[in-house]
């Protein structure tokens, strides 16, 4: 009876306060802070096939873009086509200001008329000279006129004939001049080179354009494709003909079917990307705006069944990729070689991990080989 404790209710009340407090204290000391085990979740490495895919982004582009503009510097007179118009090959879209070209053309026409009048005169003269020559020839035959007169008439005739030929050439020249001018005049018209859709109108009437500057751009809507860029690090297996899913930024996540039409032989050295062209399989009712951003997921050929783990379990320790394997309740770092990956975060393990291996997926803290772990179903805070 060394510690005969008086007053039970008081003692009990004190104990009722102190005992839970001490229990809490020890719980707290052991379950929190560095002494506490690290909560982890594990999964079993499983055999399964994965379908790897590549992800890239790109912009909608037209395969052919026609830039229509003047061949010589000048001022735009009129431009009838506007953005969104469908045009057919040969359609006049607008015209450059001809300035004095019409006047020149009229002068040319007058010159033509003048030449024709001259031709007519020459023909008349030649016909008369021919008649005269013929008559004098007959007169000369009956010796009714002198040899000299006859020669003079013949000479007149030959002269009139030569003048006629010259005048004919003159008419041809003036006509050619006129045609040339008229062709130049026609060239001032801006004409659609192919069927298409007006995608840009870059100048308005009155604007002065330099030679080669586009006044209007026409794209061919039947040849819309996507200029896609894939990071060089993750573009293994990209090839022509692979199927692809395309999501336009405006498409609200709706995927369109397509396929890789071309992998460009030139990669972008600055952005470290590989460039490919992806064509849509279906035609569009309304064309997506050229330049719109698109996400491209290229499906690669499936990989035969192999050991697969989630990429969240991959760790890098001393420049070595591996996973934490749970062995007899402890942790062991298993360096692995990884193969194909898919976009859902599954990684194929080529080497270093056996089937049925227990692999740490998530951990509340960084792990080391000495870490004490407690395996849980889900880490706190990780609810969906």
């Amino acid at each position, binding site marked *: 009876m*060394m510690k005969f404790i008086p*007053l039970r209710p008081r003692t009990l009340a004190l104990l009722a306060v102190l005992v839970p407090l001490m229990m809490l204290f020890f719980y707290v000391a052991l379950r929190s802070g560095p002494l506490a085990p690290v909560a982890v979740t594990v999964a079993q490495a499983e055999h399964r096939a994965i379908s790897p895919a590549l992800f890239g982004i790109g912009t909608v582009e037209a395969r052919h873009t026609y830039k229509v503009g003047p061949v010589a510097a000048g001022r735009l007179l009129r431009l009838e086509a506007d953005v969104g118009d469908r045009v057919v090959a040969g359609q006049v879209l607008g015209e450059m200001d001809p300035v004095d070209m019409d006047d020149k053309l009229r002068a040319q026409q007058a010159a033509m008329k003048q030449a024709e009048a001259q031709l007519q005169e020459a023909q008349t003269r030649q016909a008369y000279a021919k008649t005269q020559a013929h008559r004098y020839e007959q007169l000369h035959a009956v010796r009714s006129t002198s040899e000299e007169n006859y020669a003079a008439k013949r000479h007149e005739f030959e002269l009139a004939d030569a003048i006629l030929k010259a005048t004919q050439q003159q008419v041809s020249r003036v006509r050619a001049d006129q045609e040339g001018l008229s062709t130049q005049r026609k060239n001032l018209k801006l004409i659609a080179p192919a069927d298409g859709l007006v995608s840009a109108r870059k100048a308005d009437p009155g604007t002065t354009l330099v030679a080669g500057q586009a006044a209007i751009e026409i794209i061919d809507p039947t040849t819309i494709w996507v200029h896609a860029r894939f990071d060089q690090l993750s573009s293994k297996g990209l090839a022509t003909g692979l199927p692809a899913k395309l999501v336009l930024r405006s498409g609200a996540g709706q995927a369109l079917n397509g396929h890789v039409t071309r992998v460009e032989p030139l990669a972008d050295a600055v952005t470290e990307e590989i460039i490919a062209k992806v064509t849509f399989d279906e035609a569009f009712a309304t064309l997506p705006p050229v330049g719109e951003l698109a996400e491209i997921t290229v499906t690669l050929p499936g990989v035969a069944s192999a050991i697969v783990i989630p990429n969240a379990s991959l760790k890098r320790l001393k420049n070595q990729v591996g996973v934490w394997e749970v062995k007899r309740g402890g942790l062991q770092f298993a360096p692995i070689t990884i193969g194909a990956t898919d976009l859902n975060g599954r990684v194929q393990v080529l080497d270093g991990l056996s089937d049925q291996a227990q692999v740490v997926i998530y951990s509340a803290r960084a792990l080391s080989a000495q870490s004490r772990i407690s395996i849980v179903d889900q880490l706190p805070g990780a609810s969906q």
Partner: protein
Amino acid sequence: MVTAGIRIEGLRKRFGSGDTAVDALKDVNMVITPGEVVGLVGPSGSGKSTLLKCLGAVVEPSAGRMTIGDELIYDNRWVIKDLRALRRDKIGFIFQAPYLIPFLDVTDNVALLPMLAGLSNAMARKQALELLQALDVAHRARAMPSQLSGGEQQRVSIARALVNRPPVILADEPTAPLDGARALAVIRILNQMARQYEAAIIVVTHDEKIIPTFKRIYHIRDGKTHEEVGEGRDFE
């Protein structure tokens, strides 16, 4: 020389020194035999308290002799060096109020003294219980002081004063807060205990109700004691 419970001869106490010196006790002589209860009465300022403190070994007298039982404890200076042990073993105290330790129960309040003297807890409690039985409060042995009535508290304090069987018990106005009947009951108990435990009991009082009960009374006046024969009225 008769073996006295306590014997005081020519006890003097001077406070201060030089011109401002005050003689509180000038010549105190008392002899109390074991089993005797004597009264010590006197007006305020007569040196009653000072005498009690000197007897209680908490104030050092200036001169004189003091003997408890056969042991000389003061002879112009303390002969006994361990005054604390002296107080614990030789002197019992009863105060105006019970002054029980509020956080100890009745038994431990009493048993504390033997424990301080080095007894085991069990032995000390056994002694305490005996005394509580003698004083008729054993049924409250497990109660806390605050749960007791005034009379019970006073009896517990008497038990505490007696528990180490001291030859001398100093009671300082033990009946002051009590009415006539209760005051007389306390005196009766003190008388009984004095006989039972052969203790010399000095009761400091100015309670008119109980003065007639003493057979011997020391009046203290102006620092000097005068012995008188009391009425020794039988109040039983």
